[in-house]
């Protein structure tokens, strides 16, 4: 029997505002525990919520880049539940008049293009974070994240495979990072995803029992959890060994399985009601068009620019626009080296491989683009050769050294003095008579060996082009 998996996604994205949703505390990630906390976001009585206009603007942006309708009068509601990370005992969210509705994004998988419909996007506040067993037997709470603004992007149940889910999340990340809505870092929790999943017999139009999977912290976890959960549903349907119930399940990364989060007894009734402390907010046509006009260049627009105006290849352009960070590094480096092809080569060849060696993601690369540009220029103008250039780049990446003084202090300047190089070439050839005779016998491969030897004798500083021509001349003389 063939089965079809049906999934819908709820994606939480932290908005890139400087301050929190309802107070002026910093919303920055990575502060000391409870550093960014005031009476309001600690849930103390007497403070009244002051709505952050920037958060509303970013909510509108999120809607614009996902083709949503923007709601003209938005309201906020209170969602009640007790949990120690929720300082007031209620979360301020939008139930009745969410900021965006009825959007869609295009995704691309091996099967081709597909449209994923977005039901709604709403703004809400984040909760704090519990730290367990920092002191033995007790839990501590950190309210830094409490009241940081989020949008929750709710899709329609349009997904049929884990591949589509991943493509959608990557698309959202691209849209939202390029539009400056969020930095969308799953590892820092600024992008989180819950998957609603059900399974039905292929061809059926009735949906199966739905479960919701939470605690998914990486794309890898999402794929594994979907595979696990789909398999669990199918086995249950086939063998009847387990009755499927509508419930919330958590993903256990270590065990590689999902488990039921709470029993029915605890089924929460959130007792939503309109928040009387926040008056309805009217969103004017003018404001929307102002935001639309100020949208930064999105990934697909940038791709067009790179391929059409700058003449980069499809492959290079895709890679550069796959990450907002890489794309910014490209633009900033271009300010120093106006040679798109060369900058692209350095990013895709050298910077990407260094990033891999350092075990980092593209989004985590931090590099001084002026220094990066200087290295490219030094290679371009033959001050250093490419091999040295890559080494210097590695040092800039790791230790942020100054490339020019480093090259000068360590005498890494390229050697292109032909008399000097000729002597080295002759020396190498006379030291390796065996290889010379192999060359004479027609073995071309030894050329690489000679090059390596010459580079070693010059500490890698020789101009490869000069060496190559001298070497070939000498070898041909010997023939």
């Amino acid at each position, binding site marked *: 029997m063939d089965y079809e998996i049906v999934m819908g996604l709820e994606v939480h994205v932290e908005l890139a505002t400087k301050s929190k949703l309802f107070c002026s505390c910093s919303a920055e990630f990575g502060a000391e525990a409870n550093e960014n906390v005031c009476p309001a976001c600690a849930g103390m*009585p*007497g*403070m009244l919520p002051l709505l952050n206009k920037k958060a509303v603007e970013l909510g509108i942006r999120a809607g614009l880049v996902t083709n949503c309708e923007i709601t003209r009068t938005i309201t906020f509601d209170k969602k009640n539940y*007790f949990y120690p990370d929720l300082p007031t005992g209620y979360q301020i969210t939008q139930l009745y008049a969410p900021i965006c509705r009825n959007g869609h994004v295009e995704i691309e998988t091996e099967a081709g293009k597909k449209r994923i419909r977005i039901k709604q996007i709403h703004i809400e506040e984040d909760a704090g974070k519990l730290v367990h067993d920092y002191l033995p037997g007790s839990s501590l709470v950190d309210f830094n994240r409490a009241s940081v603004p989020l949008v929750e992007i709710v899709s329609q149940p349009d997904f049929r495979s884990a591949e589509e889910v991943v493509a959608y999340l990557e698309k959202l990340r691209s849209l939202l990072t390029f539009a400056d809505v969020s930095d969308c870092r799953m590892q820092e929790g600024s992008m989180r995803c819950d998957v609603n999943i059900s399974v039905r017999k292929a061809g059926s139009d009735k949906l199966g029992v739905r479960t919701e999977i939470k605690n998914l912290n990486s794309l890898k976890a999402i794929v594994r959890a979907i595979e696990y959960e789909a398999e669990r549903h199918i086995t249950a349907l086939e063998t009847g060994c387990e009755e499927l119930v509508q419930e919330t399940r958590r993903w256990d990364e270590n065990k590689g399985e999902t488990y039921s989060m709470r029993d029915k007894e605890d089924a929460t009734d959130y*007792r*939503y*009601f309109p928040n*009387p*402390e926040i008056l309805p907010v009217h969103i004017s046509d003018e404001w929307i068009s102002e935001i639309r006009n100020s949208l930064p260049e999105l990934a697909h627009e940038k791709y067009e620019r790179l391929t059409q105006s700058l003449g980069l290849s499809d492959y290079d352009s895709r890679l550069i626009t796959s990450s907002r960070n890489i794309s910014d590094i490209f633009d900033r480096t271009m300010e120093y080296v106006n040679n798109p092809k060369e900058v692209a080569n350095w990013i895709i060849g050298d910077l990407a491989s260094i990033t891999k060696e350092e075990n980092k993601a593209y989004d985590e690369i931090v590099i001084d683009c002026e220094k990066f540009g200087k290295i490219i220029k030094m290679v371009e103008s033959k001050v250093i050769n490419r091999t040295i250039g890559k080494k210097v780049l590695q040092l800039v990446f790791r230790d942020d050294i100054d490339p020019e003084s480093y090259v000068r202090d360590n005498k890494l300047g390229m050697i292109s003095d032909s008399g000097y190089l000729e002597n080295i070439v002759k020396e190498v050839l006379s030291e390796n008579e065996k290889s010379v005779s192999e060359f004479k016998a027609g073995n071309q491969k030894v050329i690489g060996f000679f090059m390596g030897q010459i580079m070693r004798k010059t500490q890698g500083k020789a101009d490869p082009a000069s060496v190559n021509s001298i070497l070939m001349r000498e070898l041909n003389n010997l023939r």
Partner: protein
Amino acid sequence: MDREFFVSKHDAKAENAFALDDNIMVRGGLTTAGSKMLHNFISPLQATVVDRLLAAGMELAGKTKLDEFAVPGISEGTCDILSGAVGAVAEGVCKVALCNDVSGKVRRQAPQNGLYYIHPTYGSVSRFGLIPAVSSMDQIGIVCKNIDDGFDTLGMIAGHDENDITTFPEKSYAYAPKEGKFRIGIPSNVLEEADEKSKELIYDFAGKHDAEETELKYFEVFSQVMYILSSAEIGNNTSRYDGVKFGYRADKFTGLNNLYTKTRTEGFGPDMKLLSVVGAYVLSKDNYEACYLKSMKIRRLIREHANELFSRFDAIILPIKLKDPDPYKNLALYAFATLCGLPSVSVPLGRNEGIQLVAQAKNENSLFGICKGGR
């Protein structure tokens, strides 16, 4: 008179001093909202009204006792406990006292003690620094012996506050008694339920103006609507008191749920518990539409009705108590102003009696004028 209602701050001169109900914050001072739950709560901030009164040269006399979180208490005896704000002004320890009279208790007790109570238009006075009870109805008002002092004080505290986005944009208001003859509506359906003395006072008082009988629609459900909506909001506003962060925490507990239940069982009084339970009930999935939403709809109808009434009248006159002393039924008398965010003034008349006048939003000056006799 029981003096326990008042905690003196320092030796303020009564003629220039104000008192605050203990749900209004003074930075660095204890603010308990009359609840064990906040028995140790030191205010991290200062209410805007306090800043403004101090800036205007007034002196803080001290804090006054209130019913727990100023909620509409209907449990036995609650209604009879004297409001600290009323007591302090009646005793002459301060010129005015500020409080949040959601329940209407002060609106009844002030005239009974020979005092006025001014309940301003919702949105004219900042609630920053007021411990919230019913956010859509909370409004800081003024107890005073002399109506001029009351409006003087209101002039000092009213006006937009950037810390309270529900305040109107007006920076300040000029309060002065309006002159002329006033059209006063006497809701006969309400008067049917009032005692004879109140009726007499009302006809006497209104008789000095252009009085006309009218009907206050939906009066029969005012108490229900009031209680349902306030329980929902109170339950929500007090869910932050959970023993985790500040305020009272139960001594011994086993696990998180026990911490919550024990803390809240020990920390809240009977009226708060009742309201929390009712609040959870009216907002629950199964009852939301029938209770909360329906009440919101009626509230809107009452507002529309108020607009209609105030196209014909400058003020509606109401008794301050019903024949039936049941505190729940009596809530209806104060619900009109509270539910609709309208200004009202309770006026002392005769011996321990009085009436209340309700006007259109931002029309305090008509009330002031009527109090001053009109013409």
